[in-house]
């Protein structure tokens, strides 16, 4: 009976393990067949692809005279054409749209807030600065680890230490 319940539950529910396996494999497909590679292990990255999209738009509008960095995704060796000059990577737009469709389809969309949006904005600015400093968000650090990069594994360990310290000094005081 318990087994039946668990089987039924797992049939209906998408677990993080399934989503993770799908995400990792998709990242490999994106690199192999959709040429998302200037650096390898770049198939999915929230911080880097946000950076690529925003910097691409800022460069196109030309508010600042500087040429902001955009990862040279898919440089064709024969012609010298860099595809990311023509269009940016749209991973983060896709994830937002997909999550929006899912939350609407299951009636989970609701305007709410967890803490002050101003604090959220500041945290967003700081998190992407630290993420780009180590060369990727948690997703890409996982992909880099899978690709065989020991420095990325060390950054995941550092992230775990950061999580432990924040849990001790922040969460346990506020619970």
């Amino acid at each position, binding site marked *: 009976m318990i087994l039946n319940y668990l089987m039924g539950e797992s049939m209906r529910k998408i677990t993080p393990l399934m989503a993770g396996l799908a995400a990792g494999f998709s990242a490999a497909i994106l690199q192999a067949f959709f040429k998302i590679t200037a650096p390898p292990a770049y198939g999915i990255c929230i911080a880097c692809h946000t950076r690529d999209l925003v910097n691409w738009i800022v460069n196109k509008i030309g508010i600042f005279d500087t040429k902001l960095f955009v990862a040279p995704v898919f440089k064709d060796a024969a012609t010298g054409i860099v595809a990311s000059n023509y269009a940016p990577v749209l991973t983060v737009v896709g994830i937002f749209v997909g999550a929006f469709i899912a939350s609407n389809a299951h009636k989970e969309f609701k305007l709410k807030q967890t803490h002050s949006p101003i604090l959220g*904005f500041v945290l967003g600015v700081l998190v992407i600065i630290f993420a780009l400093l180590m060369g990727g968000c948690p997703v890409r650090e996982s992909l880099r680890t899978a690709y065989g990069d020991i420095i990325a594994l060390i950054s995941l360990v550092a992230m775990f230490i950061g999580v432990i310290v924040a849990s001790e000094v922040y969460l346990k005081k506020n619970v």
Partner: protein
Amino acid sequence: MYIHAIGTLLFGIALGYLFQRSRMCFVGGMRDFYLIKDSYLLKGLLGTIAGAFIGYAIFSAMGHISAFPWMLEKGLLTPIPGDPLGAEGTVVGHLIVACIGGFGVGFLSVIQGGCPLRNYVMAAEGNKTAITYVLGLAVGAVIFHMYVAPLVKAILL
């Protein structure tokens, strides 16, 4: 020329759907594992590594992916390009940015209540804090490349 934009958009939509249904979060997995010894979310992180490893191994064997496994092809402590130091950086420099960056992301993401990926999903669920967080990511990316990256290079190169 546009295949990378179309591919990332379509895969992003499919994965965004899965991420919303599974409530996947990388930092949340580490937090739950440490605080309440629950590995449910952490399996998402391990699954990503496993799925990517399987994919890279298959496509590398088929000849679609080069330089895999990285540490055997390029040296044990050579990082995959991505951090601001690039190819000129020393091993110590790469380790410093990896540790500072990792610690900062872990610490700040716990306060925000999720990794950048989870916050995109929460923003799509109508969370106003996550929406301003995503705007912060966009602004922070420009700040990083205008001010932080040159500073880091000046210190560590």
